[in-house]
């Protein structure tokens, strides 16, 4: 079936009648979606009006329209700031590292777990790797900070190799490994769930057929397992690319200190400092807006490429 025909068929599915019919049939299900919709409206659509802040010298009691209009002043300020290259660069590097190590690491982990034949052991591994996800970020950051002081466990471990015990969070070159490693520790189990679910959905008869064709474990993985979860991987990857410019600020501001701003300071922590600490609302909105625009462009591009190349896409 050509993709054109496929699309035509899809189109037909969403006619007005079909929607109404479906709505009548699944009233309760739709009702259950309402809280979610309200949340999206409140927290994802409402704030769009707030983007106006980026173009005015915002004073909360004057409102967006009452505040003095400054045009693109804050954008110019950001682009010419000495921190522009640094924060954008740090964000991108951290994001790419996350994709390479955390994103693909998670897939690898899911594949390995899937190969485990002892069900008890498999379940235990899953639980153990899943647990750190429930620890609050503040607590995790506290643990990391403690482990990294010059007398902490991690610092002592590193000192065996380097010969000097210093605070790990004081060395800019250690920042990214620490960040990614703790990401992996905390997110591996949770991230793998979606792939394990996809793996469970693969038709078992395909494996039987492959075995009959003489495929070993490796060939099975390559020709049955991977193609089976490819759509999931692609969707997840598109989503990840769509947020490549927005590494969350929580972990960063909990862990960093001024000495390692050089590698640790990212767009979101910069926005946090500008907006909440210095009360420079306009500037921090401008930076955020710039961020979101790039993210949207990346998302749409990635989606388009994927639609062309693999026939999998978000929209």
């Amino acid at each position: 079936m050509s993709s054109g025909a496929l699309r035509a068929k899809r189109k037909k599915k969403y006619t007005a009648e079909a929607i109404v019919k479906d709505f009548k049939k699944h009233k309760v299900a739709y009702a259950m979606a309402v809280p979610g919709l309200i949340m999206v409206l409140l927290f994802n659509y409402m704030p769009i009006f707030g983007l106006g802040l980026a173009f005015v010298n915002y004073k909360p009691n004057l409102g967006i329209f009452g505040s003095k209009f400054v045009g693109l002043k804050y954008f110019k300020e950001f682009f010419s700031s000495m921190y522009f290259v640094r924060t954008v660069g740090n964000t991108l590097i951290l994001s790419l590292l996350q994709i390479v190590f955390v994103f693909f690491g998670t897939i690898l982990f899911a594949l390995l777990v899937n190969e485990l034949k002892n069900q008890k052991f498999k379940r235990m591994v899953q639980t153990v790797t899943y647990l750190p996800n429930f620890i609050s970020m503040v607590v995790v950051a506290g643990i990391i900070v403690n482990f990294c002081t010059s007398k902490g466990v991690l610092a002592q471990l590193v000192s065996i190799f380097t010969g000097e015990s210093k605070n790990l969070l004081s060395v800019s070159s250690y920042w990214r490994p620490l960040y990614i490693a703790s990401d992996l520790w905390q997110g591996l189990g949770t991230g793998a769930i979606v792939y394990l679910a996809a793996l469970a959905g693969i038709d078992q008869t395909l494996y039987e057929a492959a075995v009959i064709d003489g495929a070993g474990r490796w060939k099975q993985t390559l020709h049955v397992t991977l193609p089976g979860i490819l759509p999931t991987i692609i969707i997840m990857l598109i989503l990840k690319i769509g947020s490549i410019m927005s590494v969350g600020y929580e972990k960063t501001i909990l862990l960093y200190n001024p000495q390692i701003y050089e590698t640790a300071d990212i767009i979101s922590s910069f926005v946090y400092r500008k907006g909440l600490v210095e009360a420079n609302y306009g500037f921090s909105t401008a930076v955020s807006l710039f961020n979101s625009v790039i993210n949207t462009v990346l998302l749409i591009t990635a989606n388009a490429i994927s639609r062309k190349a693999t026939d999998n896409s978000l929209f």
Partner: protein
Amino acid sequence: MKNRILRKMLCLVLTAAMMVSVMAGCGQKESGESTGKTSGSGETAKTQESSSGADETGKLTFPLEKKVTLTLWAGSLSQYLTNLVTDYNDTDFFQELERRTNVHIEFDTISSATTASEAFNLMISSGDLPDMIMGAGLYTAGMDAAVEDGYYLDLTPYLDTYLSNFNSLRTADEDVLLDSITDVGRVVRVQNISQTQQPLFMGLMIRKDWLDKDGLDIPKTLEDWEAVLTAFKENHGAYAPFALTPYYDMFLYGFNATTGFMVRDGKVIYSPTSENMKEALTVYSDWYKKGLIDPDFMARETGYAGDTSMIVTGQSGVFNSYYTLMDYYYQSSTDPDMELVAVNPPVCASGEESRLATPIPKLAGDGVAISTQCENPDIAMMWLDYLFSEEGALLANYGIEGDTFEYVDGKPQFTEKITNNPDGLSMNQAMSMYTCPPAVLAKSYSSERELAGVSEESLAMCDVWSLVPSDYFYPFTAIMTSDENNEFAAMYSDISTYVTSEIASFISGEKDISTEWDEYVSTIEGLGIERCVELKQNAYDRYLSRGTE
């Protein structure tokens, strides 16, 4: 028909969306309106004042006939009360104050997880202001800007009427008078006024018992300091002999350097690029290399005072602190022989005398402002003013006669209820329960009341710290206009971020002072420091000429 349902649904969704956005608009409009209203009522109050102001205030006397409720943004709960109560209204002092004034205060206190400045910015940006705002100084653009931006009420017209007690104390002292007014001549907030000059209450402490054991004197020159710190490390197992904290100023003052601006011979200087700073950083980075400075200093999240657990376990021998904390250290120390004395920071090799220290002005604190959304500014002002009256000040400082204090030789003295509380409260806790907690509200403050619970030894510390003059200190109250401030902030926030990060890197040796200093200086110059200094100089000049007009 199906089409109609679909259209209806679409309508519904659209109206819902409209509703949401209209509601959002409403919120904004409402707050705008109420600001208009209150500033309007401010106007009427002003006109009334000019015609029959005296009568108007004459009618208002405490206790009020009818209870009035006011809201007050109070920042975080006083540190001494955190384990005792959750609301200021649960303390005896505020209950008594309510009895006397018949004004009920609803306190808005923030959780300890957020910093006061963050919570303050959130409160301001919510557009929903309380009647009174404690920590008024947190409005970083300055008091004039806070009035011009429409947040704080200008209190100047009411000084003689509703704020008469505050005003008479304010005008009685020339320094206080100068500090209390903004450049354009406004009085915007009510601040603590000390009845007597308070000594400098914070500085460096050193382990006297360690010094004695090694036969060393209190260090003065750089060589002394290095010898002492080395001895602490080698003979007493201190792993962080000098507990440097990210509050670098205290350690830099000895070198006549600071992380911000200072004044020398009437000229404003940006200290981080000065030679004095270079010398200070060279010394500290050398000490860091030798293991004399806390190896984790850059990642410590302490307040002004050094990390308590390190102090009481004998891991550091020199640290920042407040004189009131000494007795606490003695109680918690693992070493029963611990003895602390005050010491002034290391000084330049050239022996240049340090003239930089934090001054303790008589008018101090972030103060309390009245918001433009306050519907009873007259009552709010009178309520604030009460603690500046003799009766109110006595209540705020000492509590109730016969209960928490008694007159001895004509002077109020705390009873055992405060100094040796039967319920096991520490003196600071008892003081905060039965009198006005130290940094809360604004009052005519008697610093002498603190002395009751402090040993003479602790007090002697203040004498040592007060030895350093504060001539070079850039005055707290030299403030820029809001236009100047906008220009300044745009440049300076980048500079200060850069400087804090570089200072830490220079000390810890991540960057080499001998090779990278020039680049550091030229980067700061490239960020526009010259203009910043100019703006600061203007503000300073205006500050000097304030009283002369």
